[in-house]
């Protein structure tokens, strides 16, 4: 383990990071360098989204993958999103609009400076792989207006009936063949090579295997990982621009070894303050985290001995724990299946099933929902999900509210109050159960 010192002003606090985190940091830094250097190197850029991210396909055309959501997250973590959101509001975007969108729009308005302090390139193509979040469509409409570049839309049918049918796959493959691939060929000037795609897909599957092992390590007691706050780091490469790369394979191999070592030693997760103390509460969390106060938010959990053993958010860029892997033998079909399966494209009953099962499989004490003020896509139905999961599992649930990257909606005292109440509620239930036993 390496200890690094954050360069922030004020009393320097040592933040503990796993070696895998440092490796990821290097990967991200290199990727952002490549992106910001694109105008000089001549590399072309495709902007796309995390859910339904077609990284393997994008790579087939030598395009660089730029993810506006990840840029917004980076702005949130770096405490810049607040001013970007205000900037977007100045331009005319209302208060309730998704704050990822506003952070992105505001960042563009302020010179589009990326996390490495350099200007992010204009995209050559906007690849909208639509997977259940309506806002994505509006977001790219705005970007198209701004960049006047080509837009490609791959429509993923919603899994309203809870299953993937042959028709759905055919519908999507047809779009890939007739719409997506020809356009990408034209924009990039690179001919599509299906064998090249197979190679990338093969690599994806290797990394996906390791990721699943890492996430499922949380079934152990104590859990060696935090599958929400830590999980956000773990999904970084595979949800972003690294799926299908050797870098991702190396990262996940490395991460898995690290986690397995913790598992063997009976250790809990690493937090920014070092090893977490005794594991007292095991939670399943639904909904994205807050990024503007990420560390403060996390601290409210680990200070109380609460560890998240499974979360739905770490499934937005792909659900792998039920067996799906990118399959090089069915290259286009597998891309369709991947898009169909991401969390945001799953119906309410599927989400309820998933969360209820997580509570059982990961022996969790209950469900916590972090409801995001500006994310209708996640928030719709969350109260219903909560009731249903409570009813099915008999475990207590709680509801807190914050936002993705708008710092105005993170009220620390309120959230802490609810969390503490929830932890004590779990405690009380346990005591009640003990008394009844």
């Amino acid at each position: 383990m390496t200890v690094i010192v954050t360069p922030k002003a004020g009393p320097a606090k040592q933040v503990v990071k796993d070696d895998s985190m440092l490796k990821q940091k290097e990967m991200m830094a290199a990727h952002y360098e490549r992106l910001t250097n694109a105008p000089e190197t001549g590399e072309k850029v495709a902007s796309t989204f995390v859910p339904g991210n077609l990284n393997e396909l994008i790579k087939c055309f030598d395009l660089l993958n730029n993810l506006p959501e990840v840029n917004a997250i980076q702005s949130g973590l770096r405490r810049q999103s607040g001013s970007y959101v205000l900037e977007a509001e100045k331009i005319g975007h209302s208060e309730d609009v998704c704050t990822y969108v506003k952070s992105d729009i505001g960042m563009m308005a302020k010179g589009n400076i990326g996390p490495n302090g350099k200007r992010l390139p204009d995209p050559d193509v906007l690849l909208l792989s639509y997977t259940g979040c309506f806002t994505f469509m509006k977001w790219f409409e705005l970007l198209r207006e701004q960049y006047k570049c080509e837009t490609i839309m791959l429509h993923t049918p919603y899994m309203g009936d809870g299953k993937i049918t042959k028709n759905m796959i055919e519908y999507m493959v047809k779009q890939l063949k007739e719409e997506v691939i020809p356009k990408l060929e034209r924009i990039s000037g690179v001919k599509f090579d299906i064998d090249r795609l197979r190679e990338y897909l093969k690599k994806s599957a290797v990394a996906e295997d390791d990721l699943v092992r890492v996430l499922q390590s949380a079934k152990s007691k104590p859990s060696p990982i935090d599958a929400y706050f830590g999980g956000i780091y773990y999904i970084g490469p595979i949800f972003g621009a690294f799926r299908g790369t050797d870098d991702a394979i190396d990262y996940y191999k490395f991460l898995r070894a690290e986690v397995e070592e913790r598992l063997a030693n009976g250790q809990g997760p690493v937090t920014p303050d070092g090893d977490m103390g005794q594991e007292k509460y095991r939670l399943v969390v639904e909904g994205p985290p807050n990024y503007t106060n990420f560390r403060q938010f996390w601290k409210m959990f680990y200070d109380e001995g609460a560890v998240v053993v499974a979360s739905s958010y770490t499934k937005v860029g792909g659900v792998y724990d039920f067996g799906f892997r990118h399959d090089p033998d069915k290259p286009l079909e597998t891309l369709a299946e991947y898009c169909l399966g991401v969390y945001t494209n799953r119906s309410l009953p599927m989400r309820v099933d998933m969360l209820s099962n997580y509570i059982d499989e990961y022996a969790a004490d209950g469900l916590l929902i972090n409801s995001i003020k500006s994310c209708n896509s996640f928030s719709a139905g969350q109260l219903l999900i909560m009731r249903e999961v409570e009813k099915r599992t008999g475990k207590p649930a709680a509801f807190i509210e914050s936002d993705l990257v708008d710092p105005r909606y993170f009220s620390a005292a309120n959230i802490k109050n609810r969390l503490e109440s929830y932890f004590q509620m779990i405690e009380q239930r346990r005591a009640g159960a003990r008394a009844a036993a």
Partner: protein
Amino acid sequence: MKTFVGIDLGSTTTKAILLDENREVIGRGITNSRSNYSTAARVAGEEARVDGRFTLSRRALSESGVLGARLDQFLAALERAFRLEQFLEQLGDLEQTCLRQVNGQRFAGREDGVKVALGEVFTRLRGEAPELYAPGAKRKSDFFRDIAGSRYHSHAEEVAREANLPYDLLLNVYDKSIIEVENRPPAGGLSDKFRRALARVLTADATFAGDASGVQDVIQRSLDVEFEETYLVGTGYGRVTLPFSKEHIRSEILCHGLGAHMMYPKTRTVLDIGGQDTKGIQVDPNGIVENFQMNDRCAAGCGRYLGYIADEMNMGLHELGPLAMKSDRPARINSTCTVFAGAELRDRLSLGERREDILAGLHRAIILRAISIISRSGGVTDEFTFTGGVAKNEAAVRELKKLIEENYGKVTININPESIYTGALGAAEFARRAHLGQAAGGNP
């Protein structure tokens, strides 16, 4: 005797409950939270112990049968006399503190004049104090700051005029002193005040004279009982700022759930509207919290909103409900934003709407918001218990009853006159359980 203390540090008031080993409430104490939770906790605790002395005295006098049917009358007089003694004691402290503040450039050459004027103000305050605590007298508030403050201002204005002194000089010393005095626990001993109060009652009412020695003995014995603070649990907004260790802290949601259960064991849904938050809580048959929802990000529609409205209308907080009750045509108001409330109010008044109708509309808006929180927490299950400061407001209660019936049908609605102590009661019971070594939620 063993006592268990529960302290609820609310944003507006701090409440304390003293419980005995039989789960009976011995004493209740309340004070304003000020900006200093530590003092607030100490004062509320002290008040609860004072109340505890009255409870013990009542028990003992009742057993001894000394006063017969006049027991209630006697105890009411004793309590008024005690409050008067307490008030006079704090007034003395305030006077001394004010005198000390008379120095510096501002007062140059006028020190003596200001000191004489202060002496006169306090003489007047002391002179009228007994009236404040006369039988049937209505006080705007029971907190020293509120009572002393408003009277001080009016006397100081008069005295300054008479003495040809700038009023703001007298205001200045008061402003500097009141916080100091408020944050200082009363200096005098509790027993002394009791004895002085007793003497006052016996002198004032000759009818008690015959029982004097018997009463004195019984009260002295009650004063001699030592309240052993066996275990303390703190809850409420200020809990984290207190020097309580973790095992002495419980969430106010759990405390409210348990407190409501203790008041009404069949409670399954609790609504608490406090100063800055509204909580909807579902509890199981043992008072264990099953689910809860609270207002988030914004305190619109909480108790503080009514406080703000009262200020805007230049009324006392507890005058709002009765005025709203006079309305038969509540105004339709949707926003419960505290900041907008003033503008909304003035706008409607200028349009000629009646004050009672506007107020009734505002009460309805608050309750609509509360109903939304309850429904998100899982709806209303019989029985329903309404707690918090707003439960004392009859107009709010009227709207609540109406809306509950419309949405959930006939449900038993419990409102305890002591509902403001619900959180503290739950905390005291947690303290008792913790002492018994029971697990946090175990049944007693």
